[in-house]
């Protein structure tokens, strides 16, 4: 089972390594990880997708909560939530048309005589589909950020 967990942690050196270290120490998987400071610069927000059954996810959230640098943990998979991921793709200019990109809900963000960069935003599943469809256009490079998420109810991950 794939699950998205979000957390707030102290924005200081060492905090991230404790979170990531926990996963390797206890044999959990990290599928993707995304982290950035919040509007409160003392806090960073981290979103990760992981796999495991309900018991494993429960242990993960409990163990994350135990870390002194972790302020708050939210298992987004517990309720309705939105997940979005950003994907940047590089093409040789001749290999793809603007029309194809727009059809796939993408946007050209850079272009010159040799190449173009496009961006796509969507759920990780949607982007998987886009990647498949882009195969025919021989993309030179694909970069994905990993999913970020927010709950779609009044529950907030704030302090």
């Amino acid at each position: 089972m794939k699950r998205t967990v979000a957390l707030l942690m102290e924005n200081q050196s060492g905090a991230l390594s404790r979170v990531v270290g926990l996963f390797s120490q206890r044999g959990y998987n990290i599928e993707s990880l995304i982290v950035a400071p919040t509007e409160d610069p003392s806090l960073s927000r981290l979103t990760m997708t992981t796999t495991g059954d309900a018991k494993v996810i429960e242990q993960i959230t409990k163990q994350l909560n135990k870390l002194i640098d972790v302020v708050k943990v939210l298992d987004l998979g517990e309720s309705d939530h939105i997940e979005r991921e950003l994907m940047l793709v590089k093409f040789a200019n001749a290999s793809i048309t603007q029309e194809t990109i727009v059809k796939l809900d993408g946007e050209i963000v850079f272009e010159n005589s040799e190449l173009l960069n496009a961006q796509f935003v969507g759920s990780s599943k949607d982007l998987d589909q886009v990647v498949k469809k882009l195969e025919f256009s021989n993309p030179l490079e694909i970069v994905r950020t990993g999913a970020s998420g927010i709950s779609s109810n009044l529950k907030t991950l704030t302090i």
Partner: protein
Amino acid sequence: MSKEQISGADALLRSLHEEGVELVFGYPGGAALHIYDAIFNQEHVDHILVRHEQGAVHAADGYARSSGKPGVAIVTSGPGATNAITGLATAYMDSTPIVVISGQVRTNLIGTDSFQETDMIGVSRPIVKHSFLVQKAEDIPLIVKKAFHIATTGRPGPVVIDVPKDVTDPAHTFNFEYPKEIDIRSYKPVKEGHSGQIKRAVKLLLRAKKPVIYSGGGVIQDNASSELIKLAKLLDFPVTNTLMGLGAYPGSDPKFLGMLGMHGTYEANMAMHNCDLILAVGARFDDRITNNPDKFSLGAKKIHIDIDPASLSKIIDIDVPIVGSAKECLNQINKELGVKSNKIDHEKLEPWHQQISAWKEAHGLNHHLLEKKPSGKKILPQQVIQSLYKETKGEAFITSDVGQHQMFAAQYYFFNKPRQWINSGGLGTMGFGLPSAMGVQIAFPESDVACVTGEGSIQMCIQELSTCLQYGLPIKIINLNNAALGMVKQWQDMQYGGRHSSSTYEDSLPDFVALAESYGHIGLKVKKYEDLESAMKECFAKKDKLVFLDVDVDPEEHVYPMLEAGMSMEDMHLSKEIKTWK
């Protein structure tokens, strides 16, 4: 408090003093020299110079376990820091409150592979409750305050403070002020149990016909022994303790089942397997207890009280999980039971008590081996523990190393008080016994402290004999010498067709009597059973001397009972010939 200008090193010592620290164990080195100069220049905090940093951390750990106060060790950077790692891991696995201060290279050298540089924060990360890298001298008071708060509250554990050398430079001074209060927004351990869960637990407790209380190290850490005894007496429930929990319930009480688990008593393991209710307090259902979790006590409802939410339903699914401190939650349960005392029915437990007595009768441990007259036979290791118990009237602090001797001590010494039994249960660290005994002896200079060890374990931190001489620590070392790595050999006997791969020493053992004497102590050798009790007496009669009592024990002896791996708690080897399953 008045402000004054002092250096980072002085601030560190002042902060330790503010935390009530009276002594630290340590070993100096380049990166820690400013700190050591600060130690020299003050008189509140004593320093005990060990002979190896592992010894410093184990000693601080032994000090903490026996006294309940946090233990402190100071080491230098690089090898000093890495030598402290085994001690940290030991404290982490057994959740003991210690603070380790490690010197670090100057901040401008960090990351340059400079001399004696180790990323202590990185290396220790998986085995500490938390750690701090001090960035500037001004941060020292707050970091020390936080470190002690984190180490000693919630589920206790080791905390590392890594201190770069320039941060303690005497040339830089600042206004020292120690914080009175501390508030860490991300760390608020719960004390009180959820009242609804307490009520649910009490309901189950009153309904049970075949209950067991299974308590662990958490009860000792939280000083909840009297609450546990009160509960057990109120309900007339039998009690078993984990290896870490021995002493929380009086070992010689008739309702005590002894230790449970891998080498637990027959009656404790049978009771766990056949009960209808388990009340687990400050214990964590680890693999040395449950054996195969899929076959663990299938007929029992389970209540689990633990300060660490992550311990609940981690291995065994729990019916009534309660997050909170052992002391608070037991108090809440006792209160609730007080209200419902008319519903307590001791009579319905009678068949269960009879069943337990029958189990004890059938295969309980023989605590009267000393009465067995010797017939030219070798000394049994169990007899040595019984002799030790008799000679110390059950009142000594006992530390141990790891292996057969540890299990014999746990099985045959009745621990009647908490904090009396000090051993490395979680990590299983050979070499823990002697240095931890130093910590205990320093915390309790007037008490008898015995280190039960084996000729394998004792050699892992034997250098601390020199520390014991320097500080006049009259520890009694009881060496169960079977001339082999006994527990390894036992497994090789049982599971590897008796092939003793690298578990004996081919006549290379030292003369422990001469060795003890060369360190300035007394050495005694016992080879015959008839000399055992008189030697034990002589050993403890030497009140102010360390005595190394080297006893040749029967090398063929195995520790029983022993759970059969992969099966349930009722599947035990009871001797070399007898097992409980078909």
